[in-house]
């Protein structure tokens, strides 16, 4: 089974209220190393077969028409992640 990963981030000029709340919470837990946080979205699009160039093109189109709103967000990557094994780091 193939998988395409689409990542969407708020535009740099748009204040990201969620990221701002997270960066405010980090120092309270002792994480003083991080000066900024921006929170985005990761979509995993699954396909039954292989991820072909056509599938990637369709994913790019879906990313710009539905998965993101160009007024407030940028699509920062659309990648074939079929080989990627997602290992949770909190396991």
């Amino acid at each position, binding site marked *: 089974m193939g998988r395409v990963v689409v990542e969407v981030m708020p535009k740099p000029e748009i204040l990201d209220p969620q990221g701002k709340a997270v960066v405010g919470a980090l120092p309270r837990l002792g994480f003083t190393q991080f000066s900024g946080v921006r929170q985005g979205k990761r979509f995993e699009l699954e396909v039954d077969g292989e991820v072909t160039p056509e599938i990637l093109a369709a994913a790019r189109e879906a990313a710009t028409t539905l998965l993101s*709103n160009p*007024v*407030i967000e940028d699509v920062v990557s659309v990648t074939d992640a079929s080989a990627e094994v997602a290992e949770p780091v909190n396991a």
Partner: protein
Amino acid sequence: MTVAQETAAAPITGARIGVITFPGTLDDRDAARAVRLAGAEAVSLWHGDESLHDVDAVVLPGGFSYGDYLRAGAISRFAPAMSAVVDAAKGGMPVLGICNGFQVLTEAHLLPGSMVKNDHLHFVCREQAMVVENAHTAWTNEFRRGQRITVPLKNQDGQFVADERTLDELEGEGRVVFRYDGWNPNGSRRDIAGITNERGNVVGLMPHPEHAVEPGFGPASQEGPRAGTDGLTFFTSVLSSLVHA
């Protein structure tokens, strides 16, 4: 009966105003009630229906369509009824988007900009004062420019944002219809509470006029607690614009 109700009910009892219900819409019944109080027939429309059933105007009510999943209004924008709304709006039909309905209109590109989370991150629910800046739209022609009105406001993703060029265009073309007065409740750029398209038939705003249409159930006003009916003027305005169309 208020003066507005009497004058509105008389000339065009035949006007039909559609109110679209999406999965997760909350305020469709209040919007339909506002339409009836203004003197028109309220027509319930379903998001999955491709036909607008010959209505004269459409209201996209507030709520959390599709649970605000993905982005507020993002999935509703692709509902079959919305294709019909986009076509009708381009033909000049009056369309009012309230709160989530405003978010749907921006996602559908009928209005510019977008809404993101409130700058303070809290859900806000209050009686909100705003100033009418454009009294020439289909939904505001019975207000006066500069008039201060109060209607309820309740949202989580109510911060209106757009790039500086778009904001300058909106200001320059007189398309800012309402500006928050006293306090900006969500961090919206330039205190913008509502905007319109070039033609003035499509209006979107975050506050809820449909909750301020009947004495006893509205926000506080000079007449007394819960006596405010400033919202009714949206609905009487659209009836006037239909008569004079």
